[in-house]
């Protein structure tokens, strides 16, 4: 589904990604872990199309197309979804209006008919249940006055509405209590199928108790330095990232 090859990227002249390789196939869940400053969020931002970063080398193939050549909205319409670490508050724009605009622009891009207001509302009701999002929040302004947990649930709700091929969850667990974490993870698991894939970016192993990854990668200093299965996450939790640093130093 996505093939990242030798990706180098910098911001304001500082190199953050230094030759990152990653391949994710349909039906898989990959976790990317790593210490602060390793480049985890940079990777998510670049994949979503943030323009502040300069790609100096490498390629990203998304379902046979050059992802890096696409504008942010085209990536979304092609099926890439980023759950933001810090979802943006947009006063005055209702969640519903926003999602309806998004859904219909995506459908138009795919040459599908626009969804009727009735079908759309039915979909909102169905999908908001997945993350136990109060339907009232759906009609409020995007993320405005939402608690941290509500914001993250709203991200997963949007993901449920847009049904992406590849979802990237950027530190979705940060700031969540156990209940919220469980709800968010349950949402992600419910949406999982053999046709889509998920990249879970996290600092802590905790989320991976609920979202079981097929692969765990350690991102350190701009590169993936170690790959394993879910037991690698547990090992990291136990030993901390210094262990990886020490191993690399050898």
């Amino acid at each position, binding site marked *: 589904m996505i093939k990242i090859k030798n990706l180098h990227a910098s911001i304001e002249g500082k190199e953050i990604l230094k030759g990152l390789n990653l391949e994710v196939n349909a039906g898989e869940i990959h976790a990317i872990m790593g210490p602060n400053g390793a480049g985890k969020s940079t990777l998510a931002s670049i994949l*979503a*199309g*943030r323009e502040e970063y300069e790609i100096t080398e490498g390629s990203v193939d998304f379902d046979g197309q050059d992802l890096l050549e696409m*504008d*942010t*909205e085209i*990536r*979304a*319409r092609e099926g890439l*979804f*980023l759950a*933001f670490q810090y*979802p*943006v508050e*947009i*006063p*005055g*724009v209702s969640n519903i*209006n*926003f*999602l309806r*605009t*998004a*859904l219909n*622009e*995506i459908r138009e*891009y795919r040459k599908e008919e626009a969804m009727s207001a009735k079908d759309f509302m039915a979909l909102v009701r169905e999908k908001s249940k997945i993350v136990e999002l109060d339907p009232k929040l759906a009609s409020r*302004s*995007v993320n405005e006055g939402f608690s941290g947990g509500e914001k993250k649930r709203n991200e997963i709700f*949007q993901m449920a509405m*847009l049904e992406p091929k590849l979802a990237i969850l950027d530190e979705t667990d940060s700031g969540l209590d156990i209940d919220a974490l469980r709800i968010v993870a349950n949402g992600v698991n419910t949406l999982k199928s053999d046709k889509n894939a998920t990249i879970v970016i996290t600092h802590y192993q905790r989320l991976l108790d609920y979202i079981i990854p097929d692969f765990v990668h350690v991102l350190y200093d701009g590169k993936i330095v170690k790959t394993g299965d879910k037991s690698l996450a547990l090992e990291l939790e136990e030993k901390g990232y210094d262990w990886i640093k020490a191993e690399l130093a050898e």
Partner: protein
Amino acid sequence: MINDTMEQSKLQKFTKAFKETTIAFSQSELERAREVVFNSEFPTTRNENWKYTRLGKLQNLELQNNAPLQKFKVEPLSENSIQFIFENGHLISGNTNSLPDGIEIQLLSKCSQENLSKFDDLNNLNKKDLFYAMNTLYCNNGLFIKIKSKQKIERTIEIIHVQSSQNSVSHFKNLIIAEAFSEAHIVERFLSDNSNSSFCNSINELKVEDNAHLTFDKIQYENPNAISINSDLVEQQKNSTFTINTFTLNGLLVRNNLNIEVKGENSITYLNGAYLLKNNQHVDNHTIVDHLAPNCESHELYKGIIDDSATAVFNGKVFVRKDSQKINAFQSNANILLTDTATINSKPELEIYADDVKCSHGSTTGQLDDEAIFYLRARGISAKSAKELLVSAFISDVLNHVKNEDVNKHLNDLISKEFGWEI
């Protein structure tokens, strides 16, 4: 001195084609108007009141007072509205005889001096203003409207001004009284037809008497070369509510003076405005709320979206006089600049002479939030739609103050047509 003479001659030249009014204003009012017009010059930016608005484009117009009328047809906002259409200041449609109970409307040209002079005491400060004086001296026509006491007028009163033909000019004035315990809704629309450049100088004088509720929606949608200067002089008596919503959606140079004197206790005033500018348009809103009585509240919200090389001016003054205790006065002006060449001059002012009041004022200017645009795009929304959503969201709270559904829908249609924004 030499400079003065030159300026004066500009004004003389400008007013050359204008004819003195035949409306029965009192001699003292006319004399005062002559005094001002004959002894003034166009205000320059040295004048604090006109600091950010140059009148060069107006001064250079060669206006014609007698352009033939085109009898423009305008769709009413609702079939039910009481509609009057003026073209270049002259009535072309509307009937003062078939009116619902509780309302009396007369053309100023047929209005008695007794009715006209009811407004002589209003807002005296403003009467030294050149454009006010010109309006009196050269007044074409306008309406005298009386909402009779204890009457609620269900139908919207719709006053439409059309500027037609090249270099047309109009001076018109509406005199409006909402008597005690009455309630009414008035819409004033400014349009152009087949007119490349024009000047419209309009005045509304409004008296809102005890316990009356008056709502006034003003929609300015002239063509991109039209110049207009508008003044609304308002007086509120006790327990009254006055709401004015001003929307400026087109025009080359638009100046709005809104002066509200709150003279009676327990009154509420709402002033909302939205101005959406593009190209090289210039829109200047000067508002004054003068709290002369205690226990009142005023809420002012003006928002602007300024694109291209357009310039907006907001100057909002709130006075709370010495014995006007327990006043709640809130004023807010917020602007979004869509380009690096768009300009806003915003000056919120508060002068408080009472000690037990709750007042706030603020002004913000910013650009569209890049983070929000990225967030919307990351959900598949095009950059253009993302900007439209944000712009619409920004002014939606001003539009939400427009309670009349027909007006609200009309504004949405105009904004969508003019700017492509759906609100």
